[in-house]
């Protein structure tokens, strides 16, 4: 695995800088909560369903508390108090609030310790459910096995959960190892999570708990049939990151798109909001044994892949540190990486290979999320299939582990069943045909590939130095990632950020920091 002979001290130094940067933001995180974090905590306690107007009960309760200015103590403080006062379940409390039967803010308040104890018990019970699902995954994998690396990751995106299930099963039968159910355009900006099975998405299907369940069942079924555990992926980003993490943990998703900054940069979500949300969502993902996928690949859709390669590496190091602060382990970090160099660039493949090898060596224990060409794909599906083939070649040559399949129709539509079929077939052919190529070749010590890798590492560390100086929020304001500028107080969702008060109650945080591994 050590082909580039990188300066290990430089890597250590880069990590230190990234650690400083993340800890700088962590102060803000530790001082705040958000409506979505609080809704997620309720969901973890089992609050589910919608009111008569279709508003999720979690939203109803949090809106009531927020309007009353009570969220600074944490929603659990109030809800658990109601549980104690009324001898109801959290779900019954939420229902009561929605019905107008319970005036949650005006109930008598139990002694602090009593509330905390009860909250702790409820949280522990909730977490034991998540640990159960985690062990279930581990057992199924032990029993059935899973795909061999590079694991083949495909998307389904029909917009209809039932059609998605059909396609997901077909894909697994063809050889896919990981199925991502793409989310409808626009959901990330909704400040609530839609409810129930859905059939009307655009470019993807709504992420709802019912949809997660339907797809989990479909994949468990096909996994048994073909004797391979199939991973299920969804999107844990946008204004509801923490809630989606909660839903995913309970429904045994295996992979979540979950970045510390993607929503800020690509969805214009307020950064103060996202930083707090990403923390709680990653605590959950980490605890549930879910692999997260970060979003650096997206930077290269707006910035140039050759010029901005170092921004990807710098961001990966920051994302890693944020994840470590949530107790995540390296093997849960699918860091975003992409094959986005203009196909006209002479020796473009050498640049790609250098970058792919570089991330493998800087993050030897992380399953890089290795992303295909998208930006330079065109309506010429035949040429596109060739671009995807070189991507497949680069993956196997650099020993990647999570391999998102490119689709020949990338520039046209979300994948048709035959697009996915052809792409899986192509990838399997390449992987089998070149299986041990990586072990056969080495790179010229004074060659282009090594030189390029060293250059990108140097530039990334230099960028981290600059970010460390100004702080991450200012770096985002400067447009240092993806060439997109975001103001610290701009974007959507800032209203949902609440300063924690003394006595803020959220037992999930300390409990989850202990880790969800089998004890």
């Amino acid at each position, binding site marked *: 695995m050590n082909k580039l002979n990188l300066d290990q001290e430089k890597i250590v130094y880069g990590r230190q800088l990234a650690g400083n940067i993340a800890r700088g933001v962590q102060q803000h995180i530790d001082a705040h909560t958000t409506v979505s974090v609080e809704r997620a905590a309720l969901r973890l306690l089992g609050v589910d369903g919608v009111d008569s107007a279709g508003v999720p009960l979690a939203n109803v309760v949090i809106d009531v508390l927020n309007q009353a200015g009570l969220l600074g103590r944490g929603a659990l403080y109030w809800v658990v108090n109601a549980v104690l006062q009324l001898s109801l379940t959290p779900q019954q409390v939420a229902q009561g609030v929605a019905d107008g039967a319970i005036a949650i803010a005006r109930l008598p308040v139990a002694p602090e310790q009593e509330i905390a104890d009860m909250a702790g018990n409820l949280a522990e019970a909730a977490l034991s459910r998540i640990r159960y699902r985690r062990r279930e995954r581990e057992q199924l994998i032990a029993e059935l096995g899973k795909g061999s690396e590079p694991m083949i990751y495909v998307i389904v995106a029909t*917009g209809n959960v039932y059609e998605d299930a059909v396609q997901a099963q077909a894909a697994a039968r*063809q050889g896919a190892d990981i199925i991502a159910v793409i989310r409808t*355009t626009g959901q990330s900006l909704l400040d609530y999570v839609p409810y129930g099975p859905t059939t009307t998405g*655009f470019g993807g299907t709504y992420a709802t708990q019912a949809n997660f369940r339907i797809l989990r069942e479909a994949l468990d079924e096909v996994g048994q049939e073909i004797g391979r555990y199939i991973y299920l992926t969804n999107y844990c980003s946008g204004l509801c990151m923490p809630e989606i993490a909660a839903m995913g943990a309970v429904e045994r998703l295996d992979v979540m798109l979950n970045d510390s900054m993607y929503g800020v940069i690509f*969805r214009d979500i307020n950064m103060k909001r996202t930083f707090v949300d990403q923390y709680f969502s990653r605590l959950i993902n980490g605890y549930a044994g879910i692999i997260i996928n970060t979003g650096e690949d997206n930077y290269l859709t707006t910035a140039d892949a050759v010029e901005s390669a170092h921004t990807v590496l710098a961001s990966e190091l920051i994302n890693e540190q944020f994840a470590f602060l949530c107790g995540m382990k390296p093997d849960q970090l699918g860091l975003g990486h992409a094959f986005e160099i203009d196909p006209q660039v002479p020796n473009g493949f050498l640049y790609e290979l250098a970058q792919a090898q570089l991330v493998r060596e800087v993050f030897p224990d992380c399953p890089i999320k290795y992303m295909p060409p998208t930006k330079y794909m065109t309506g010429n599906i035949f040429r596109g299939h060739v671009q995807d083939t070189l991507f497949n070649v680069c993956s196997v040559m650099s020993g990647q582990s999570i391999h998102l399949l490119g689709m020949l129709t990338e520039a046209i539509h979300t994948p048709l069943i*035959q697009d996915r079929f*052809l792409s899986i077939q192509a990838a399997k052919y390449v992987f089998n045909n070149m299986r041990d190529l990586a072990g056969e070749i080495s790179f010229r010590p004074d060659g282009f590939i090594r030189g390029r890798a060293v250059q990108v590492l140097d530039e990334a560390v230099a960028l981290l130095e600059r970010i460390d100086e100004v702080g991450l929020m200012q770096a985002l304001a400067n447009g240092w990632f993806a060439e997109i500028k975001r103001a610290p107080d701009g974007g959507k969702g800032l209203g949902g950020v609440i300063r924690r008060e003394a006595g803020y109650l959220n037992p999930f945080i300390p409990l989850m920091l202990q880790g969800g591994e089998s004890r």
Partner: protein
Amino acid sequence: MNVDLTKILPYGDTLGDGIVQLSFTLPVALSGAAKEAARQLAAGMGLEEAAVVHAEAISDRFSFYVVYAKCRQGVDLTRVVVSEANTTVLAKAEVDEFIRQRLGRKLNVLGACIESDAHTVGIDAIMNMKGFNGHKGLESYHEINAINMGAQVACEELIRKAYEHQADAILISQVVTQKNIHVTNLTKLADMLEAEGLRDKVLLVVGGPRISHELAKELGYDAGFGPNTYAEHVASFLVQELKEKLAEQNGGPLN
């Protein structure tokens, strides 16, 4: 090779052979009958000598086919009418000159990806200084005041901004087209502008990889631009339309 333009046929390796390639999936298991059905589907398209050259199971419920066949019904190319926004592409200097001369003030151009669409690379390519493929964007035009609102802009917000900046033109980008979401979004905006009484006061232009001028017209827009559009195309269209508008206002052609 003497091509008969009144009856253009696909060309495989011999003039007039009409060869086309097709591929598709059938939602049934692979079988002899399914393969024959695939052939009949092609025949049903009026194709001759349809040969299913490949048939493969995708799963036990789907099967994939590759077909080659001969198309006999040509198209009369001499009668094809292409609907394109405008023909003469002006140089940047000409555009600026025209605005300076005839309008006497900067042209206010507002751009956005509306509603659920967050694909800004296309509208950025048209509007931002940097432009695309070496073609500078509208921001680089001295006489254009280009305001790019970016991604996922609600129609309401766009209209507010249009009032605020006294927009002469509104440029919309729509990239996601699944289940015709772009049609829904574009119709919504057109209706809202109409309702506000703004529709006649602005030039309304839409672009995106699946947008054609024809579709734009159908949806009540003044123009539509597809792939490979650059700022100069849009700018040229805007000033040429403006010219006509000004001419109408003055009751006759201006020059």
